[in-house]
């Protein structure tokens, strides 16, 4: 099943985000081996060079690392994964708060709504 992409942004960025998400959500566990570029790009139905670029960026961020003989592995650094998770969550929250602000909600109202939803 091909992965879905939004049409208004580079595919590279979206690949990067999707794989980041699979790492921080635990679909890929710390220390797991990542599928090869060929397998990943076949699964996603994307260009192998674009996939390669996304994986190199993940390497730069430290989320994955290369092992000469066995391909790419997910980092064992749980602290780093947690920090990335936090960072992504904050980005989502900012987007959410922006939308709520546009709808005319104050911070207090948002918090109230959220805690109401929680108790339902």
């Amino acid at each position, binding site marked *: 099943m*091909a992965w879905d*992409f939004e*049409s*208004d*942004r*580079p*595919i*590279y960025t979206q690949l990067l985000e999707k794989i980041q998400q699979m790492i921080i959500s635990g679909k890929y566990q710390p220390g797991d081996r990542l599928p090869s570029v*060929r397998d990943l*790009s*076949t699964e*996603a*139905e*994307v*260009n*192998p*060079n*674009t996939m390669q670029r996304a994986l190199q960026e993940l390497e730069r961020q430290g989320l994955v690392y290369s092992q000469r003989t066995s391909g790419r592995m997910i980092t064992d650094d749980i602290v780093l994964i947690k920090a990335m998770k936090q960072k992504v969550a904050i980005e989502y929250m900012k987007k959410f708060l922006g939308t709520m602000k546009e709808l005319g909600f104050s911070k207090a109202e948002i918090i109230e709504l959220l805690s109401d939803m929680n108790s339902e």
Partner: protein
Amino acid sequence: MSDFLLEARGVSKLFGNKTALDNFSIRIGRGKLVGLLGPNGSGKSTFIKLCNGLLQPSSGEILIDGKSIGIETKKIVSYLPERTYLDNGMSPKDYIQYFSDFYEDFDPKKANEMLGNLKIDPEQKLKTMSKGTKEKVQLILVMSRNAKLYLLDEPIGGVDPAARDYILNTIIRNYNPEATVVISTHLITDIEPVLDEAIFIKDGQLVLYMPVDDIREREGKSVDALFREVFRC
């Protein structure tokens, strides 16, 4: 070794007084999946036929791996025509033998493996196969060569979505950093994430040649959306 795998220098092609290709220049690198995108009659097939020597340019020249089009370039170019040339009386097995005799770079093991994946019987005569199955057989033969340049003229035009997925998967799976695949089509959405670069061609002229993600970055829209703008009727 030339830096570019495929180079066209001011290529024009006239059919009578009709200009099919108009001073067309381009330089395409190695290890790229390239979409040759344009509406019907824009010159896509003409360019592909010039690249494999089925047509001669009226002016200008084309170089593949630094060589003029001829026997040497035919050895390294694998071509999927718009319409299949396969003979109905033959079977895939016959064609595997034929291609093995004809092309030094043909890999019969690869071909048999792909036939197996698609559950196509190598002994079955082509005349008893559906149009889509025949197209798959043709694509398998073309992709089973270890060529440097693959020229695929409308490979996803007439096939169902499952076959389309298989074709795109085959192209991705066979990716080789030394080889370039040029895919002509007007169905862009399906193929866009698979491409490194897009060529827009209109009335035989080059409109744009750019990496797909650069288009998306710069325009804030997909190649498909940009195509619809550029080629609005």
